[in-house]
């Protein structure tokens, strides 16, 4: 431990002002503070003692919460591939197959994203913010497994630069950066991002595929009103369905949700209200639905299909882009749930409503907060009038 500190201390002058590599100071600082909590002390005036919680810890909790969904996603890549080729792979074989498919996606996402993040921190002379540690893992998890790496790289770059850095970095952005990456890929490269084939590994190239396999996601079936082809609720809850890598298993996502709520990192109010919104509107739609159409699908199916669970737990709760007042969080979540169902059921062009619903509500979150803040202001003004 002392040895490592010594090595870092020896390197430090090279990166500090006047040193040969001083233009890389932010990068050095990021690695140093990754290994060591810095020796900075509190200011002479103000709070002299600080809680030991910092953003690194907060962000790493989100990563921990993502792990169950990520591991299941790896397994499911192999599982779906195995069905598609009519093979007889064992559990570990399927997992290993998925792991090898997923790894390049994660590496590309982190290398591109962190590269830009480090560079912009350097330009601004800031410390590197931890925000991308989460986004960098979220992005591959909401992509189809067969996405070409170059599209992923461009999407990540777009998300980090246009979705975040132009606003001033983590904490200043309007939209969830991971969703910006997804929506960019979706709109810029529709042939690679939609249709039925991209969701199962190997289906796009078509080698050794059993004829009956379509690779369509349950949502795609539902949008075509093919309710009979939708897998069982149980299969969808557990996650043995085609879809974006991390989104399929509601169970694994729920484990993540428990971790996030328990550690207080994500708002349970947003999660709960989003579920209430989806269920409420879902049942309403059910009541007026023609039998055999998407609208007639029981509302609780909405919760386990597509990206609803993943979006609710990991994307809608992003503290920067969600509503920030406590009352605002209820309204924000409720509207996300409702909008998702509306987009899914009434707009067959975009079966995945969750992404659009969250981005739309990200846009309106400041407006919701504005009215909540205004009510606090009005209360204060009224008080002043009443006492006079």
């Amino acid at each position, binding site marked *: 431990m002392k040895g490592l500190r010594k090595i870092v201390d020896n390197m430090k002058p090279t990166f500090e002002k006047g040193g040969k590599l001083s233009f890389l100071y932010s990068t050095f600082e990021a690695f140093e503070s990754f290994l060591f909590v810095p020796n900075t002390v509190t200011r002479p005036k103000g709070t002299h003692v600080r809680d*030991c919680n910092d953003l690194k810890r907060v962000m790493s909790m989100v990563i921990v919460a993502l792990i169950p969904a990520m591991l299941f996603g790896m397994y499911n890549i192999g599982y779906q591939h195995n069905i598609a080729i009519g093979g007889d792979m064992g559990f570990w074989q399927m997992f290993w197959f998925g792991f090898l498919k997923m790894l390049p996606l994660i590496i590309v996402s982190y290398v591109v994203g962190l590269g830009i993040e480090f560079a912009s921190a350097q330009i601004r002379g800031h410390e590197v913010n931890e925000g991308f540690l989460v986004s960098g893992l979220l992005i591959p998890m909401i992509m189809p497994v067969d996405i070409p790496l170059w599209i992923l790289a461009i999407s990540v770059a777009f998300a980090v630069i246009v979705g975040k850095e132009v606003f001033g970095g983590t904490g200043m952005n309007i939209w969830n950066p991971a969703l910006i990456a997804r929506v960019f890929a979706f709109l810029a490269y529709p042939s690679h991002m939609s249709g039925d084939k991209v969701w199962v590994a190997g289906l796009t190239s078509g080698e050794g595929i059993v004829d009956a396999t379509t690779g369509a996601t349950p949502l795609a079936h539902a949008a075509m009103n093919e309710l009979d082809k939708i897998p069982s609720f149980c299969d969808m809850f557990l996650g043995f369905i085609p879809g974006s890598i991390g989104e399929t298993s509601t169970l694994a996502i729920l484990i993540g949700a428990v971790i996030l709520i328990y550690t207080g990192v994500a708002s349970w109010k947003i999660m709960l209200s989003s579920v209430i919104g989806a269920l409420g509107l879902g049942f309403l739609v059910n009541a007026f639905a023609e039998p055999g159409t998407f609208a007639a699908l029981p509302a609780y199916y909405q919760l386990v299909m597509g990206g609803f669970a993943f979006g609710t737990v990991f994307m809608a709760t992003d*503290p920067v882009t969600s509503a920030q007042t406590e009352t605002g969080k209820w309204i924000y979540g409720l509207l996300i749930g409702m909008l998702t169902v509306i987009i899914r059921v009434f707009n067959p062009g975009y079966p995945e409503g969750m992404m659009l619903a969250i981005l739309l509500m990200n846009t309106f979150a400041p407006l919701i907060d504005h009215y909540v803040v205004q009510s606090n202001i009005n209360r204060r003004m009224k008080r002043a009038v009443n006492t006079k």
Partner: protein
Amino acid sequence: MSNHIRLSKGLNIPIAGNAEARISKTVFSDIIAVKPTDFRNTTPKLLVREGDRVLAGAPVFADKYRPEILFVSPCSGTVQAIVRGDKRKLLEVRIKADEKNEYLQHEKINLEKAGRDEIVDAIVKGGLWPAFKQRPYGIIPNTTDVPRDIFISAFNSAPLAADLSFTMKDEIGNIKTAIKAFRKLTKGKVYISLSAEDAASTPLRNIEGAEYYIFSGPHPAGNVGVQINNISPVNKGETVWTMDMHLVATVGKLLATGTCDMTKTIAITGPRAINPSYVKVPFGVSVKSVEEFIDKSKGHVRIISGDILSGEKISEDGFLGFYNNQITILEEGDKYEMFGWMKIVRPKKFSISRSYFSWLTPKKKYDMDTNLNGGPRAFVMSGLYEKVVPMDILPVYLLKAILAGDIDKMEQLGIYEVIEEDFALCEYICPSKVEVQSIISRGIDAMIKEMA
């Protein structure tokens, strides 16, 4: 008593080094200091020169723009040094105290007959007007203002704060005198707030003439600002006054005897305090005279005049602040911690966050140090500050209004109701390490400038 207000928001920081309820030392003579920097919005005009003799209670400097407001010497002695900082800013007037105090004797007033002006005059001339703090802004009020109400907190909830039912137990008579006088200073009421924990036993529970409220809940329940917000909040255009209970006793003594006896019982506390306990000291006592309480054996220490949330760091030859009743001694956190944030458990550190496991040991006290425990970042998390602010105020929005320099928004969002200490816990828990209190200071300074 039916006025019971229950607060659930807040946090008691479990830091080690609570003062034992005994007086372990009485400091008599020493070098003491009067520090103009203790008083917000005050430009000092010196009234003495180096080498001058002063009596206890004799003015040392006055406010340049309100010359009637005097700041006096706590003891008799010789002005030893006038310490200035950058741009010749007056920092300290150091006085070498005599062996025996000689007091400046003021006329005694008859409280039963005295009118408002007479009482104001007595407090001003006695040099204790600065004991009053006005909300908005936490500044010394004008002598001509009439406050809507006067609020006094009869308990401290700040970490390791002096226990008022112990330090005030011999001062009840003086406090009664002061409250009687304060009743004539306001058209409204004089409120005293008790803690639910000792409301039935504290000697401060039956002072005639005061309107009592009981508060329960964690810190900042004892902050007078929080109490005002929950009893009768300050609206635009209104002013209320507050006074620290120790100073209430001092003012009471001045009114009763005509002499300004500036001594108080303060707590010496903190993880690096040897035998944390109470000492009787003159106002502005030097750290040197309580040196034996400082444990320097385990690395650098920080000495704070006040508590760990809102106190001020003072050097080893520094002096106690006018409004502080406590000296806190803790370790400087100027060292690296390897893999700190990655550790699953950090048994030596406390966190309000459940991502660490300190919530499993609620009784444990921690040897906290001054490490920032992370790097400064932009606001990221939401909903955290709200957990420790038991007032009808949206902390983050007020802070953002201040950062944006938006005077109207600050006013609308409650700048009149807060001073730094009310938001100190936000600063403590902030994972982005935002300097919340200095932002509030900036906001208050901007308001004072705007309204001037």
